């Protein structure tokens, strides 16, 4: 069968859909793509013939990879803003948490010992670990600067993940 279709991304591509259906039913063994324009690329990749999608000249995973790298590199510039926002969020969380009901972060006001839902959720999101020692509030691999600077009791004594050096 031969399929030729030109259309915008919004238009319904009947010939293209027919080709995909034929391929899924394994009624054809191979598809020869002689011209693949940009707009058709993603759909063409998803046409499965004999278990393997047709890969266009510009692979969608490569596009996504390049996009990922660009986004990640851009994060280096946003670091200071993100750090500040993270610190603010954590302070709010401590101050307004149902468990403690504190109006502001106050060192030494946490219940001594025991894990709480609050600390568990913080541990899960930040990688820090709650200490059961009354003289140690938190331990963390990548310190949370706002809390570190305000809590004299905070000492780095342990890390949650062994791959992270405790001196970090």
């Amino acid at each position: 069968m031969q399929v030729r279709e030109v259309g915008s991304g919004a238009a319904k591509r009947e010939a293209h859909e027919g080709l995909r259906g034929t391929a899924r039913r394994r009624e054809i063994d191979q598809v020869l793509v002689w011209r693949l324009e940009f707009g058709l690329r993603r759909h063409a990749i998803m046409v499965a013939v004999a278990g393997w999608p047709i890969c266009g000249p510009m692979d969608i995973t490569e596009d996504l990879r390049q996009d990922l790298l660009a986004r990640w590199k851009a994060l280096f510039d946003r670091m200071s803003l993100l750090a500040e926002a993270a610190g603010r969020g954590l302070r709010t969380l401590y101050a307004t948490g149902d468990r403690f009901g504190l109006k502001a972060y106050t060192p030494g006001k946490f219940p001594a010992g025991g894990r709480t839902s609050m600390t568990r959720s913080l541990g899960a999101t930040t990688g820090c670990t709650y200490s059961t020692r009354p003289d140690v509030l938190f331990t963390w691999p990548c310190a949370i600067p706002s809390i570190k600077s305000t809590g004299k009791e905070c000492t780095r004594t342990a890390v949650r993940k062994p791959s992270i050096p405790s001196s970090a």
Partner: protein
Amino acid sequence: MYAYGSAEAEYTEFCITTQIPSEYIRLALSDGQPASFQRLRVQCRGAPPDLRGMSPGLQAERILSDPYLHEIEIEAYDLQDGRVQSGWAWTEAPGIPPQRSMLAYSYSDDGKLQRIVANSELGGTRTVFAARTKTSLKQLSSTLSQRIAGRIIEALQKASFDSPLVVVELPYHPPDNYFPGVVPCTQADADRMADLCLVVAVDPKRWIELVEEDFAPDITEFADRIDYIEQSQTGAKMVRQAARMVTEFGRGQPWAAENFVAFAIDWEFEGGDLAEILKECGADGKTLREWKQRGWL
């Protein structure tokens, strides 16, 4: 940091000490359905060695140019009838060549996702997701131990060795992988060995490789479940139970030495517990004393 939009959700994690974004995840949506997944993770949680003093640009360049400093996962999904039918994945991870895979999704009659299988372009198939069954974790662990032990015994019986086996190491790597390798050590190897770290002492060409996919979907479900409850010890018990079965079967076999022991270990975290592990895997007091005298313990 989490960020949500109508067409995407992002997670960003950064290391305050090094100022490096240690992990970035993005899920893109199309009409409320997942369209693609992107993830980049920096090793050592954003604090890899030897990057101090570099500019951010150089740090990024160095991280991306070294395959041991980063991991990348990309997935693009093909949606049909409101659910993912297939996908296309790209993976870069330390120790394995970058590879592209096709993801095949299968659903139960009531529409529940049952299994995702990745077919790699380099060859090989791997079940990356298996739906949770009603089997208890204990039962699942026991079944897997028996099946893995059976396959190891079969492989050892088929292989030919120049002298009887003294030890077989089953290295595994929790929490990522509870499926062990098989490293056989003969009497001849043992005579020139300084310690019991067989993954270093024995040429990888002589390792016996089992096919993990033969144990799917059980092994995938098992790993997912213990990862969910964060009990890597359950995984360790499963592998060591398999090792103990191999030890017990091997004693008295023509291919095994008198004090034959098979043991499962993750040297990175369990190396200090070697004696206890050997005991758990069926080594008796006499064997342990003998090996201590040889300097193996």
